[in-house]
Structures are given as structure tokens and as C-alpha cells.
């Protein structure tokens, strides 16, 4: 079964490599942008249809923000960025569940054995094992399950003989953006920088008294700990989101490889739920840190 911890590169844009999760993030971005522009042009005073749903989402999130911050003015101030983070993470989480994401792709010849996926049997051996697979092996969109069906024990001897040469690896064109550690790390970095910015906006230069406090050796040590805790927030934000979504992807791949029909349904439900909760946690946690940073020490 092909599981890759890192996002696979699909093509180059000049000097920069573009991975499949980056491509998916761009697609989501463009679609949401188009929707936002079209929706804005059609806003009505008395809402109907889609506008109702959007207003419901915004109002309930605003109520949540107010109950977390206990301060209407601050809730108004922090709400836009927090809701944007929520929406961005949510849509990228759910994009990984769409049909076609992770299953449509191409085969790439790998000349070396040093890559992150389990060594795959070459295509010729896949034909031999087609009798054991549940789906036709020559359909690209289902080829993921073909490789997944290949039993490791029977293939390993053959794979070792050929893995020194080259073997075909399946590379999906789309992959959930948040299942890439780069995405979550970048977002966590942005969130922590924003926390500092909010602190400075509310308290001015006095915000740094939290970190550099020379009145007392104990306070000095606590200041150092605060700096360390900012970095640990970055790590914990990124790994929480990455771990949840990536583990969800692996779980779905394993379940689909074991029983492709009907059985994955509750797991898809779980993944939808987990995507929502993780987006909520990321944004509400950011909001809580905003509040803590803007509170006088």
C-alpha cells in the first residue's frame, strides 16, 4: 500500500517544485475566491437559500468568539482572521475526502530505493496478482487499491530482486493540503506571529515585558519559559493538525484496501467530523492565544 509521509512533487514551476497538496490548496483557494466574489455581488437584504447558511455559520462562530473572549470589541477585532483560518483549514481538510483526491494520478519510475513509500512491485507483477485483486488492475483511478491488495509476503522476494533497479510508484495528482506538514507548519508559524502582532497592537512595546522581565530571577526564568512555550505552540499546532488529517488518510487507505464497499462509510463520517473539529480547535486556540496576548500581564 502506498503511503507517503511527504507530499510528492508533480511538476516544476520555474525553480520551485509544486507538490500535489500545494496544487489541491490552490484549487480550493481559487474555488473559494470565485464563490466569495459571486456571493458578494448577490447579497440581499433579506437572506434566502445559501445566504442563510453562510449567515448562520458566521453568526454562530461570532457567538463562540464572544463567549471565548468575553469582550464584544475584541471579538469583532479578532473575528475576521480567526474565521478565515477556520474556513481555510476546514475546506482543505474536507478536500481530502472528495472522490478523485488521492486516487487519480500517474505512475512514476523510481530509479533508487531510497524513497519514503514501501517498495512496490513493478507493474508486471501487478498483472500476475490481478487474480487476487478485487478490481481491474488497468484502471488508473483504482490503481491504488490494486497495489494495496498485493500481499507483502508473496511480493517481497520478487520486489527485492527488482527494487535495486526501478519500480513504479503511484503518485496522486491531488492530496489534502493539510496532510502536508509544510502547510500546517506554515499556518502554525503565521498564527504564532499573529499572536505576537495582536499582543503588540493591544499593549504596545510593553508586550515584551512578558518575555524579558528583569525584576526577579524567578520572573526572568519564567520569561525564558514563555519564549520556549511560543515555539512549542508552533510545533503543537502543526503536528496536531497534520497528525489528525494524515492519520485519517492512512486509515481510509487501509480500510479501503481491506473492504472497499460499504464498510468505509462510517470512517468517512469520522473523517468529516475530525476535519471539522480540528479546524475548530485550530481557530479557537488561536483566538484564545490572541486573548491571552492582549491581556495585561
Amino acid at each position: 500500500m502506498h503511503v507517503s509521509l511527504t507530499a510528492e512533487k508533480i511538476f516544476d514551476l520555474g525553480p520551485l517544485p509544486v507538490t500535489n497538496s500545494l496544487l489541491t490548496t490552490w484549487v480550493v483557494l481559487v474555488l473559494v475566491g470565485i464563490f466569495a466574489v459571486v456571493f458578494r455581488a448577490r447579497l440581499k437584504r433579506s437572506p434566502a437559500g445559501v445566504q442563510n447558511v453562510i449567515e448562520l455559520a458566521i453568526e454562530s462562530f461570532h457567538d463562540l468568539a464572544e463567549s471565548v473572549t468575553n469582550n464584544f470589541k475584541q471579538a469583532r477585532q479578532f473575528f475576521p482572521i480567526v474565521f478565515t483560518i477556520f474556513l481555510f483549514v476546514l475546506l482543505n481538510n474536507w478536500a481530502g475526502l472528495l472522490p478523485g483526491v488521492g486516487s487519480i494520478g500517474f505512475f512514476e519510475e523510481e530509479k533508487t530505493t531510497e524513497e519514503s513509500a514501501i517498495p512496490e512491485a513493478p507493474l508486471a507483477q501487478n498483472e500476475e496478482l490481478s487474480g487476487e485483486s478485487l478490481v481491474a488492475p488497468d484502471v488508473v483511478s483504482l490503481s491504488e487499491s490494486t497495489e494495496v491488495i498485493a500481499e507483502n509476503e508473496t511480493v517481497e522476494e520478487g520486489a527485492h530482486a527488482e527494487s535495486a533497479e526501478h519500480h513504479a510508484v503511484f503518485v496522486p495528482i491531488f492530496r489534502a493540503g493539510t496532510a502536508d506538514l509544510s502547510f500546517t507548519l506554515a499556518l502554525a508559524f503565521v498564527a504564532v506571529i499573529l499572536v505576537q502582532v495582536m499582543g503588540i497592537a493591544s499593549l504596545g512595546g510593553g508586550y515584551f515585558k512578558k518575555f524579558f522581565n528583569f525584576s526577579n530571577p524567578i520572573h526572568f526564568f519564567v520569561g525564558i519559559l514563555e519564549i520556549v512555550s511560543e515555539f512549542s505552540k508552533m510545533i503543537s499546532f502543526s503536528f496536531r493538525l497534520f497528525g489528525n488529517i494524515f492519520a485519517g488518510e492512512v486509515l481510509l487507505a487501509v480500510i479501503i484496501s481491506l473492504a472497499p464497499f460499504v464498510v468505509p462509510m462510517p470512517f468517512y463520517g469520522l473523517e468529516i467530523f475530525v476535519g471539522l473539529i480540528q479546524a475548530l480547535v485550530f481557530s479557537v486556540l488561536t483566538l484564545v492565544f490572541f486573548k491571552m496576548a492582549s491581556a495585561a500581564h
Partner: protein
Amino acid sequence: MDTETIKLLSVAGTIAIGAVMPSLAIGMIGSKGVEAIGRNPEAAGKVQAAMILAIAFAEAVAIYALVVALILKFV
């Protein structure tokens, strides 16, 4: 014991042991939260929000263990 066996055992051990304490923690958070809602049903919204946040924090540690296990297995 060759490296393959040890690697396999360590992968299983990492996630098995790493999931014990977070699940205990989530259970305790849940029980205290439900108890608080039972004592004061009017504050249910606030208690729920704080409870979900605390559960996500506790679950993150189990996710760290899972990520380590996945890295061990697939990298």
C-alpha cells in the same frame, strides 16, 4: 532479533503505549465536564466549549505518538 523485527515491535509499542495516557486524560476531562453540566445546566455552553478544547489538547499527544509510529514505519 533482526532490525526488521525490532522496527515492527517499536512501531506497535509506540502507538500502543502512547495512546494509554491521552485516552485516560480524555475520559477524565469528559467525566468532569459532564459532571459540571449536570450541576449547572445553564452554563452548559461554556463548559462544553472549554471541554472540547481540553479534549483536543489531550488528543494531540496521542497524535504525536501516532505520527512517530507512522514515521518509523514508512520512512
